[in-house]
């Protein structure tokens, strides 16, 4: 089912006109109401009333996370705080969090986008949606919650954690859709095994997974273990939260709500706009938000954009699953390493995804990457020889995939802390 066929399947030319109209209004409003943007436009010789076509977007200045930190907490808001009905905040893993404000209209628009996401994932008003994203300042929980209610799903507001209780509700209430981070989906799957429950006994149909970068391998593992179809959903607190884009059943890229956000792909080094299909950093401009619209927000997420009508009927721009978040990238002895690459190698060792963690240290002046892998039932053997062979096999596969030598250490099951939200895969102990 398509939630909003009028907007999601709109004629592309008509959508571009709508985008231009909305962009002009947003830029004019920001120049009038947000001193930070007014100054930025002036510094970059941008006439906020002079936008004549969508091509002019490339002349507007970028907004970075540093800009948002500098204006913390409310310096980027385009409305007085009294007009806000809610705030959320980013997890702030790297210092100051970003506070996002929402007017009533923003909340309504957001619920519309989340409704699109849920329908993209095969949902409708007959579904029982278990929201296992955290509720609170994090946008995941309440975002999915409002979308679910908008569609008419029966929403179970579990929030994250309390895994045994999640499974109980899932089974007793017959949950058909579950929404959580991919790493928490794996935790749920583990709990099923521990409790001796066959996923086939549950009523799960689809899962809406996002908020962290996950590999294709991890998707396959989750689909098999939970016996559902996994959909990638995408969003950022700085842009609105989840709902920015999501997979449809054809899995050919996540459909962006591009009547609300204009996406661009840029070269992260030169900042030049790249043509369709080229890989680069995705940048978003909000064109319908009232409280906290960002212009050309640098997401740090690496992906590609595709246009053209999808088999599902939607005409919106599509982005490929995010291959790496600039922030997650590790530089080990000068080589760029994404945790997802390591995950892919591990899954291919024995077809299941082990729990793992990456620990980076410095020995002398040399970076050392230790890949800690929990010993699963599949890996375990009663001879040292066999276990050392597993270590060497992983090490060899990592060396050929990454081009660097890593240390592989087998560790006891359940010794890596299970995440209920975003998984902490990397522990970097190097001193800056």
């Amino acid at each position, binding site marked *: 089912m398509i939630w909003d066929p009028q907007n999601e399947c709109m004629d592309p030319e008509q959508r571009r006109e709508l985008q231009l109209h909305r962009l002009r209004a947003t830029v004019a409003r920001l120049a009038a109401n947000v001193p930070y943007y007014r100054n930025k436009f002036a510094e970059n010789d941008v006439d906020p009333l002079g936008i004549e076509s969508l091509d002019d977007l490339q002349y507007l200045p970028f907004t970075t996370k540093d800009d948002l930190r500098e204006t913390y907490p409310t310096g980027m808001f385009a409305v007085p705080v009294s007009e806000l009905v809610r705030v959320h905040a980013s997890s702030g893993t790297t210092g100051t969090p970003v506070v996002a404000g929402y007017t009533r209209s923003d909340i309504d628009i957001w619920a519309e986008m989340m409704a699109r996401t849920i329908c993209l994932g095969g949902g409708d008003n007959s579904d029982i949606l278990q929201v296992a994203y955290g509720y609170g300042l994090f946008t995941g929980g309440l975002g999915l919650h409002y979308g679910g209610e908008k569609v008419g799903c029966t929403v179970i507001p579990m929030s994250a954690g309390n895994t045994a209780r999640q499974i109980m509700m899932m089974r007793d209430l017959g949950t058909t859709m579950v929404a959580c981070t991919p790493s928490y989906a794996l935790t749920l799957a583990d709990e099923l095994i521990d409790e001796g429950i066959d996923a086939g006994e549950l009523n799960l149909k689809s899962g809406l997974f996002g908020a962290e970068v996950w590999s294709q391998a991890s998707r396959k593992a989750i689909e098999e273990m939970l016996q559902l179809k996994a959909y990638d959903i995408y969003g950022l607190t700085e842009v609105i939260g989840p709902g920015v884009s999501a997979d449809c059943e054809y899995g050919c890229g996540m459909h962006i709500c591009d009547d609300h956000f204009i996406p661009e792909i840029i070269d992260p080094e030169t900042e030049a706009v790249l043509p369709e299909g080229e890989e680069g950093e995705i940048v978003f401009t909000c064109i319908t938000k009232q409280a906290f619209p960002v212009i050309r927000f640098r997401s740090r997420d690496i992906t590609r954009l595709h246009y053209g009508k999808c088999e599902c009927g939607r005409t919106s721009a599509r982005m490929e699953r995010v291959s790496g978040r600039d922030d997650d990238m590790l530089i080990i002895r000068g080589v760029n390493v994404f945790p997802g690459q390591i995950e892919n190698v591990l899954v291919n060792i024995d077809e299941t995804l082990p729990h793992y963690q990456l620990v980076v240290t410095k020995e002398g002046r040399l970076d050392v990457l230790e890949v800690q892998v929990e010993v699963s*039932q599949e890996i375990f053997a009663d*001879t040292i020889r066999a276990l050392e062979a597993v270590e060497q096999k992983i090490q060899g596969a990592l060396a050929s995939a990454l081009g660097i030598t890593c240390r592989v250490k087998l560790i006891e099951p359940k010794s890596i802390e299970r995440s209920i939200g975003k998984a902490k895969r990397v522990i970097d102990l190097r001193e800056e």
Partner: protein
Amino acid sequence: MTLEEKVTKQVSVFLENKSGRLAEVCQVLGDAGVNMRALCIADTSDFGILRLIVNDPTRATKILQERGFGVGEADVLALVVPDRPGGLASVLAMLTDAGVNVEYMYAFFITVDGDAVVLFRIDDEQIASTVALLEENGVRTLRAEEVYAL
């Protein structure tokens, strides 16, 4: 006596080399009323494998799994070896001559009728032929039931 009866189940546990883990395994088994009959530890600088003969291997495996340990079961043979100089040497020579690959072995602390009991881990595909070989040469293999009750 069937082959199955002659094969003793050994419980193996993966342990990281950090203090207190062995004590924890022992405590878990003790609390569950599982009695340990023999044990040996093989280790590297990072991890170790604890191998156990207990009175109830199925229960021990289940309990350790529930407690989150990495556990496996392996088939071993419990041989009655004459408790005299050269006793073990003669058994090993016989196995070597027959091309039986011994992965590892360890001994019980207690004796049976004055003889020592030594546990042998050999390749799974060689177990049946080895049992026959031992029988031909008059080396007694304890039945699993006897081992668990030692």
